[in-house]
Structure formats: C-alpha cells, structure tokens
C-alpha cells in the first residue's frame, strides 16, 4: 500500500482571489449583489479604456511571496496572454509571464516536509459564465462581469506532493497562511486549482479548474486510481487535460493536445514596469504577522502546551489572539481547553467564522474566570457560550439572570440526591444490579432539579456514596 502511494506525483497551480476592496485594474468593487452591477469600461474591455494597477494587490502578492519564502523580483512587469473565450472581456488576460512577483519559495506541510513554490504571480480573474439550468441543460450562456478584473495570485508548486492527502495538507497550510496575512477570505473569495498528477514514469495529466480544497483531494484520489487502473491494464496514461465533476467525483477528458497552447505573450504595453525599492519592501516585510507554524512552536515553548493543542490554537489567527489575551488572567490549560473544545466546537457546528461570530475577548475571559473560580458548572458555561456566540447575550448576565451560578450549598445538593433516590427506586435497584446507565439517569435527575448548578462528577460521587450506604 505504502509503495503504491509513493508512485503518485502531484503539482498544483492555485488561483487565489485576493481580498481587496477594488478590482485589479479599475475602481470597481470586488463584491456586488446583482449580476453585472460592479463593472465599468475597464473591466468590460471597452475600446479606449486603460488599466491602472491597484497597488494593494501588489502589496498582497508581495506578502504572499514573502510568507512562502520566495525570492522577490524587485522589478516586474505584466504580460498579455491572448486567447479567445467568452468570459474574457478583452480576449486577452493581463497576467505575469517572464518575471513574476516571487519565485523559488517553499511551504512546510504539517509533517514538516517542504513543498517547493516555483512562482507567485498576479493576474486578473475573467468574468463568470452562468448557466441557469446547469451546463448540460442550459440553452444559453450568460456572462457576469462582476468577477472580471478581480485580483488573483497564482501560486505554482513543484511536483513535490506524493498523495492526494499531501495535496490537501498543502492547501490547508496555504489557506492558513493566506488568512494569517489577511489577503484571502475563505468564505467570500474562491480558491481554484489546476492540479497535475502522474504515476512515476508515466505522462502528466492536468485536471483543470477544481474549486476548493476538498475538491482537489477528491479529484486527485480519483485520478490516482484511474491512472493506476490504466497501468494495470497494461496501457499507457495519455498526456491530457481533464475536468473534475464535483457531483460524481470523477474526471473526464477535455483535450489531449500535447504542446502548450500558443498564448502569444507580449509585454502589457498599457502598464509600466513596477519597481520596488528597499524601503517599500521593508515596510511590507515588517507588516507580516507571525505565521501559524512559528506561533505553534512558540506556544509549545512558552506555555508548555502539547503540539496538537498549540497547532489548533494557532491555526486561526483570531483564536491564537484570544488565547493569548485570555491567559493574562486565566489558567493556560483551562483557556486552551475552553477555546479548542468548546468555542471551536460551537463555531464549527454552526459553520461560523471568527469574523462572522464577532466575539469580544472580555466576554470570553469573563466566562472563563467564572469557570476557573468554580462559580459555574462546565455545562452551564457551555450553555452561556452558545447563547453568546449565537445571540450575543453577555455570558455573565445570562448566568446571573438564569440563576445558573453554582451557589448550591452542601445540604441542598444532598436533599436533591435524597429526593432523586426516593423517587426513582427502580433505577436505584438497577444500579445495584450493576447497570451503570441507571446511575447516569439518576445524575441527570439531580442535575435537572439543581438547574445544572452542580458538577456532574460531584453528583455522581455523592449519589454512589448515598446508594452504597443503603
């Protein structure tokens, strides 16, 4: 099995929409509600219009290049890639060809393996083709130019990955870096990948235009199996370009042209060469945040966290920040557990991003403090947290108002236990016969009558003592 895995060779070309306010070559916004409502003469390619470069996109591309450990080209320019396609407003795309912004970098996988980055370049997104009733059924194709001219960075790797899982891990690491840099919004922006796969010694097959990380993993898994099947039959894999079907999770042949298409690149004559001075480069370099892998390492060293927890905490820049704020006043282990298990659990369950949840560190810290002092049970803390994440109800207030504070005294608890035992004799009898479930049932009853103010573990202990004393 492991031998088979090592035969697979994967390389990726990732197209990432940069999260700028305006488009790459005009002032149109990058988000819009109505189709064709965010476009002007430039993104529509009207004769007479001219592009003006959005410097923010260059800043972002430089950040990406630096974060991916690339060499930076201090002077770069743009090129025209000419081909006819209905989503192209000018029938040429402004991109970078000879000299990209960054080259020869790497990105480290979670295993520690380094994947070589061949180049990072800037280009414009074409318009979107819309088929109202699906590609197969539509009698017409509509074009939405809102996407035309949105800035992209293309990140090209060397064929360094050896399994679809490694390709997935690469994309996970990449999107984490991009989010740390604040240049990519995983919810709004799209990630499109052209993925190459070959079986050692065989021809290379390119699967074009795969959307999302999961898609890449699935497409590559299918391709690996398909190509191995071809080889098993004693045939040779053809060099070709294929498309991925997201519904059937299969790929199909698009074209088998052997050579690279003739795009007839020329220098983009409407834009001047871009020259970077040291001062500008340094200012970009200094604006780079601590990235997730170095942050995880630091968390392990500084706070004695285990590698896994440190990894989870540093995966999202917001989570890491909340953690470091919280531990100024709360125990490290408690904060780590609360944030990675409870908070992340709630966000993931509700498919919410940190941006969407818009959490206030003070509120979270306040809740953790109650927990630390033993003033609220874990169960009620979680309930308050859910209320806070979903309804923005202040956790302290909520606990106060609902009377969820752990202000139960020993006698009240013992009374509640006494009542539960007396009212549920059959369960007590079951427990005595060795049925553990019966005890859980009784604990639940006590929890109910004490409004969750007592900890389950404590109730269990006291219940056992009470029954065993009979």
């Amino acid at each position: 099995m492991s031998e088979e895995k090592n035969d697979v060779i994967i390389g990726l070309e990732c197209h990432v929409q940069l999260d700028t306010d305006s488009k790459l070559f005009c002032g149109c916004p990058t988000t819009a509600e109505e189709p064709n409502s965010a476009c002007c003469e430039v993104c529509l390619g009207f004769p007479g219009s001219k592009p003006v470069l959005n410097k923010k996109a260059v800043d972002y591309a430089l950040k990406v290049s630096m974060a991916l450990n690339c060499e930076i080209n201090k002077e770069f320019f743009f090129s025209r890639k000419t081909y006819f396609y209905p989503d192209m407003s000018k029938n040429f795309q402004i991109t970078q060809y000879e000299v990209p912004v960054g080259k020869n970098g790497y990105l480290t996988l979670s295993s520690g393996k380094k994947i070589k980055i061949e180049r990072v370049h800037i280009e414009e997104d074409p318009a979107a083709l819309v088929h109202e009733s699906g590609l197969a059924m539509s009698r017409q194709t509509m074009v939405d130019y809102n996407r035309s001219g949105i800035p992209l960075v293309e990140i090209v790797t060397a064929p360094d990955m050896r399994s679809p899982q490694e390709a997935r891990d690469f994309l996970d690491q990449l999107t984490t870096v991009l989010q740390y840099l604040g240049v990519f919004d995983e919810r709004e922006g799209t990630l499109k990948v052209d993925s190459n796969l070959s079986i050692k010694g065989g021809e290379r097959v390119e699967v074009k235009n795969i959307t999302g990380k999961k898609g890449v993993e699935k497409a590559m898994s299918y391709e690996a199996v398909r190509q191995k099947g071809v080889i098993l039959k004693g045939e040779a894999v053809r060099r070709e370009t294929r498309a991925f079907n997201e519904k059937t999770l299969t790929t199909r042949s698009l074209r088998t042209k052997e050579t690279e298409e003739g795009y007839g690149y020329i220098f983009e004559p409407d834009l001047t060469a871009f020259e970077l001075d040291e001062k500008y480069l340094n200012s970009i370099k200094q604006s780079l945040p601590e990235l997730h892998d170095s942050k995880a390492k630091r968390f392990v060293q500084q706070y004695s966290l285990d590698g896994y927890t440190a990894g989870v905490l540093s995966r999202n820049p917001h989570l890491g920040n909340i953690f470091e704020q919280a531990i100024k006043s709360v125990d490290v282990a408690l904060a780590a557990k609360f944030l990675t298990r409870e908070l992340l659990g709630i966000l993931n369950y509700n498919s919410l991003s940190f941006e969407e949840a818009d959490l206030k560190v003070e509120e979270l810290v306040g809740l953790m403090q109650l927990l630390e002092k033993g003033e609220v049970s874990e169960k009620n803390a979680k309930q308050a947290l859910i209320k806070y994440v979903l309804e923005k109800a202040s956790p302290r207030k909520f606990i106060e108002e609902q009377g969820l504070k752990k202000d139960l005294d020993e006698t009240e608890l013992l009374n509640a236990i006494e009542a539960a035992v007396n009212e549920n004799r059959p369960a007590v009898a079951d427990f005595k016969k060795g049925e553990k479930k019966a005890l859980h049932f009784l604990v639940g009853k006590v929890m109910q009558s004490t409004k969750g103010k007592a900890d389950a573990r404590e109730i269990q202990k006291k219940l056992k003592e009470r029954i065993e004393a009979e």
Partner: protein
Amino acid sequence: MEAMSIADFVKQVVMGKISVVQHTEQVLSEIDSTNPKFNHFNLIASELALQQAKEVEAEIKTGRHKGKLLGVPISVKDCICVKGVESRAGSKILSGYRPTFNATVIERVRAEGAIIVGKTLQDEFGFGTFCTNTGVDFPTPLNPLDKSRSCGGSSGGSAGFTALTEFTHAGIAESTGGSIACPAAFCGVVGFTPTYGRVSRYGLMDYANSLDKIGTMGKTVADASLLLEVISGHDSSDSTSLPEPVPNLGEGEGDARFKVGIVKELFEKSDESVRKECEKAVAQMEKLGASVKELSLPLNSEYGVAAYYLLSMSEASTNLAKFCGMRYGLHGKLEGSFNEYFSKVRSEGFGKEAKRRILLGTFARMSGFRDAYYLRAAKARTKLINEFKEVFKEVDVLVNPTMPVVAPKFSEIKKLSPMQHYAMDLCTVPANLAGLPHLSLTAGTAKKMPVGLMLTADHLQEQNLSSAALSLEGALK
C-alpha cells in the same frame, strides 16, 4: 481669405465680435457641402456641436470665458472616444459603438470651450500611410490640393480638412508610426506629435499601445502648438502618462538658435525634388541663426521600419482580439459555437489590411517565433532609442524630409506591394519608435504639391520644436 489663428479667433469671440453659434453653423454647413466630395469626416456631429456652441455662448454672456479654445471648431480622429458619439476607429467592426465616456483629450478641450464638430476619416485602426486602407464600406478621403492624390495616413481626414477649411480649425489626430506627420506633409499643414506619454491615451482606441501618441493638426505652428498644450499633461487614468509639467507652447516665440542635425540617410533615401526643398529650408534655418551639421542614424535607417512593424503588428493583433461581436460594435446572427460566431463577425467586420496585420502580428508573437521576431524587435528598439540619445548629446533638433515623396496619386499607390507601402514610413518611423516629439511643417512645393520637413527633438523637448518651427515658418512665408 486666410483663416484667423486660434489665438486671434478666441480674442474676437471674447470681445463679442464673433458669435460662436453662428460660426459653428457656418463651419458645419461647409463640412456638409465639402464632405461628399472629399470624405474627410466619418461622422458630422452637428447636433452636439450646436449644443456645445450654445453652451459656450451662454457662458460668454455670463462673463465666465477663460477658455483657450473658446468656440474653436475642433475635429477628432475617429479612433478617439467621444461620449455618446459613434466612434469606430474607421472600422466596420465598431459600427454603432457609442462610448460611455470621453477620452481625456476630449475632456480637456471641452474644458477650454472647444466645439467638437465631428470624427475624421482614417485608415482602419491607423493601419496605413495613404488613407487607402479605410474600413469595409468606408470611402477614401481626397487631398484638397489635388483630388487624384492621397491625403496621407492614417490621420488623413484630419489633415485634409485642416487644409481645406476656410475657417479657424485644428484637429486632434493620432500617430503610431507617422500618422500625423505624413498626412500633414501631404496636405501642407502642421502636424505636431508629442513625446510618448505627454498626452493621455485614455479613450484612444489602441493600435499599438507602446507607440500610440495623440497629437495635433493645425494650419500653423502656433495653432498646432496651442492645441497640444491644452491636451498635454499627466492623467492618472493612463499608467503610461508622464508626470512632467506642460511647457507653455501656445504663446511661444520663434527662435532659430539651435544646434540642428541633418539626418544623412533620410535625405539620401528621399526623392530629389523633395530633398531639394528640404535642403533649402535647412539653409533658411542656418540663415536664421541655427548651427547645422550632418549626422548619421545608421541603425534607425536600416532597422527602424522592420522593428516598428513587428512590434506594432504584435500589439495590434492583441488589441483587435476584443472585437468579437459580443458587447459592442458589429453583431452577427447568433448561431454556431462561440468560435464560429466571432470568426464570422470578424471576417465581415475587418478590412484586408487589418486582417493582414492580425495574421502577421499573431505569427510574430507565437511560441517558436516570438524570440526571433517579437522579442528581437523589442531589443532592437532599445538600441535604436540609444542611437537617438547619442546624437541628442550633440544637437537639439534633427531634420529630415517627412515623407520621401510628395502626396502620391491613387493610381500610383495601387501599384505598391505591402512591403513598398510599409517602406514609405522610413522617415517618420524612427522618431515614433523612440517616442520622440516631432513636428512636420511645409518646407516648399514640388510637383505643385507641398513638401514636409520633419523636426525631431529629444524626449519632452516640445518647446524647442515649437520655437524652431515658428521661426522657420515665419521665414518661409
């Protein structure tokens, strides 16, 4: 009657001695009567012109009348976008294209009170030297001095009408490889092409973006200079626009005391009658105080035309890709695949020379040929610019015949092969390839037709050009 200079005309307008509305009506009626005979205009913007004239006149009455072009009729080469006015760059493929925005130059002349009278005829997208490569279903403009001869190209309508009109007038024209100087020389007017980047190209429908320059056509050096001053200056909508301040060109004084270099090869390669007239004009410059020496531009004379055509066609072939019958311009019947549809629209919409340049330009940039043609031409261009930079260490102004011949007869043009046609640009191409400012003015007459002398200065030295030309123009009168 000789038409008033723009400066004098504006003074009269300000004093209320000329009614802008009446004057505009007269100019429009002249165009209406001459255009069927000479074809200088693609489109006469009567309604727009009269509306503008009324606005300007109303403004004059309120006392707010500071414009440098108050009430001056200005014609615009068809390749320059005028908001709401059909702008076709002389091509059928742009039929019905009414830009949603004004070119920057249009905004600038309008701000000075100019009246836009119409769009002038040109070779399709600027692809020609004689205005005989006009688009499918377009006529050919005729030389007002001899209807059997060419106006020159590609800004043929612009030069032709500037020579023809009895009224004060200047034209906004455009040059890629000599499209202002050539027709100016053939029609006996002044054509002023600025440094590349001096005038914003925003709103210019591209031929070859790294070469295209919007410039002016005038009856006199003063008129052409004044209009150039108005349209010059930095524009953030054009990334190649230069930030340098604009010199005062409109009120410049003549001055001949420059170091002038005669470009030997370009004199040698011109017709004898043309050469003689140009030599006489140079002698005149010397008399006026210029110090004259002969020098040589061997690389430019040998490789200029080849490098120019490779680069301009490569760029043109990408610029013309956008015309596919989808968003604007000519549309076809919706049938077949996308490829079949746009191929049909393009086959119908482009003229023969446009198709030739698309094919040649695409070939020159395709992988396998790109190194040998496109990239080599780009490298050659740098060497050619350096050759100019060397001679400008020694002289201020270069002179050469604008065209090696006087305006040819249409019967003669028909006999030219495409290569002979391209070779006619020999004298104008080098300065255009190097992005240098140049000006053509009439040096004399040969075969009863005007002979153009071309003056070229170093980058951004438009003021020197204007001064030298003013001085020479005064002496030649």
